[in-house]
């Protein structure tokens, strides 16, 4: 049992570490989004300067592009908040696991002491003390038939405590799971918008290739957009990967 709980603790610690990394990464997303918007506005300004019909399509494309950061913004804002929630939840779970660890050891010791005083051949290892059903019926176990009423009360009370903690941990695990899934949905959406921005950039490049004098301005604008979108995508991909790792870890340590 000790090993299982240590395994929990280590798993939670790893997920916590990932959660903090995700938090750091998401904090930089907003900056990227603001930079993208500035670049798009630059595009509109450049297009407006062209002054004849040639610039109209570029104005439209830059206009679309400038709208993208606005569309991404709520997702990015949520992406900044959610990992914070994730860290809160993981901290609460870690505390519950630590409590469970101490109470489970106490229950184990208490059972062994009771069996010893009863001259019984039973020991705590005969019981799966991380199983809610076992814990709920522990005080009624025939193995404890010689135990004193006080010993039964103490064992029952500790077992109830552990059931309560196991339920909290399980609930938190499932909350963490849905939080991670939710973050991944936002990330996928933000990545999709990034790809659209990249596509818009390519279109601006094509449209501006017909221009004579202003072509250079648009080339540098588009390369900046592409560089920025690449950075955004790389960061979002990194976060997504980290979340996949934590989801795997979570699945492994979840109490069956």
């Amino acid at each position, binding site marked *: 049992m000790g090993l299982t709980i240590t395994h929990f603790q280590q798993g939670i610690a790893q997920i916590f570490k990932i959660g903090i990394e995700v938090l750091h990464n998401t904090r930089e997303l907003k900056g990227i989004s603001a930079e993208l918007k500035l670049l798009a506005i630059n595009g509109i300004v450049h297009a407006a300067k062209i002054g004849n019909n040639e610039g109209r399509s570029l104005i439209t494309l830059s206009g679309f592009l400038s709208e993208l950061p606005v569309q991404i913004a709520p997702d990015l804002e949520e992406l900044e908040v959610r990992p914070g929630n994730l860290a809160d939840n993981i901290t609460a779970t870690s505390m519950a696991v630590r*409590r469970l660890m101490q*109470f489970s*050891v*106490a229950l184990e010791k*208490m059972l062994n*002491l009771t069996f010893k005083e009863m001259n019984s051949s039973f020991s705590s290892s005969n019981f799966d003390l991380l199983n809610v059903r076992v814990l709920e019926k522990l005080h009624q176990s025939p193995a404890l038939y010689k135990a004193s009423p006080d010993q039964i*009360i103490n064992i029952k009370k500790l077992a109830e405590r552990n059931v309560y903690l196991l339920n909290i941990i399980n609930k938190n695990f499932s909350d963490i799971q849905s939080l991670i899934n939710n973050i991944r949905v936002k990330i996928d959406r933000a990545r999709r918008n990034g790809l659209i921005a990249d596509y818009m950039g390519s279109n601006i490049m094509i449209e501006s290739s017909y221009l004579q004098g202003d072509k250079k301005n648009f080339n540098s604008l588009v390369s900046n957009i592409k560089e920025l979108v690449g950075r955004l995508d790389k960061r979002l991909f990194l976060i997504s990967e980290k979340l996949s790792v934590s989801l795997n870890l979570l699945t492994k340590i979840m109490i069956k």
Partner: protein
Amino acid sequence: MKSQILFEEGPHKWLVIGRDDDKKKEVIDTNEYVIIHNNEAILLDPGGIEIFPQVLTELTRHISTENIKAVFASHQDPDIASSLALWADLSTDLKVYCSWIWQGFLAHFGMGTDFKLTGIPDDGMAVNIGSTKAKVYFVPAHYCHSSGNFSVYDPIADILFSGDIGAALLPPGEHDMFVSDFSSHIKYMEAFHLRWMPSSRALREWVNRARAINPKMICPQHGSIFAGENVNKFLNWLEHLDVGRWNKGQEDVDIYHTTWMGWRFDKSLAKNQI
């Protein structure tokens, strides 16, 4: 971990729990005391979170967890009180007593649990053990060693729980709960008191209070218990101790403490570190 009954008369009982062979080497050994009256208990310095399972298991040999009504923390150290949240988990109406100056600090041991902390005023106070008529007295022991520190006197058992006063760092395998030879016990106490006790004056004031109480037993949180003639021997020894010393008492070499570890502060050197 073992428990020993220190006093038992009618419904009144004192227990000491200590000498934990299972604890990790780096965890300092502690004594936890329990006063039980009419099957209701107050726990004195319940100990750190690391030893909680052992203390709880030993305690439940004597009393049901739901009958632990209060916890007293002599001061704010983790070996005294980091297990508070777990004790509070076991009893929803558990009362926790500590110096008023540490209330906000002990709340940091909460781990999400709100426990009912009662701040003890500087002059001390008396409280009943649970719903019984038996009273215990929180006796001021400020600066011995913490700036907000209390001892506990129980007039029924005539026992004074002294917290870190009288603490000794015993060698491994020393299992005797009581001091048998005071003069040979000094070596286990001296270094602790010189370093952990900040004020000789505060210590002497506490000795005066302890003398006025004149208990049969003085029970520290670390080490062994003083009983019989060792109570006076201990108070006499304590009274003449010049505490608040570090650097093996050689602080006179440099009274302004401008040097540490053999080097002198030179602010210009800081620029080289940037």
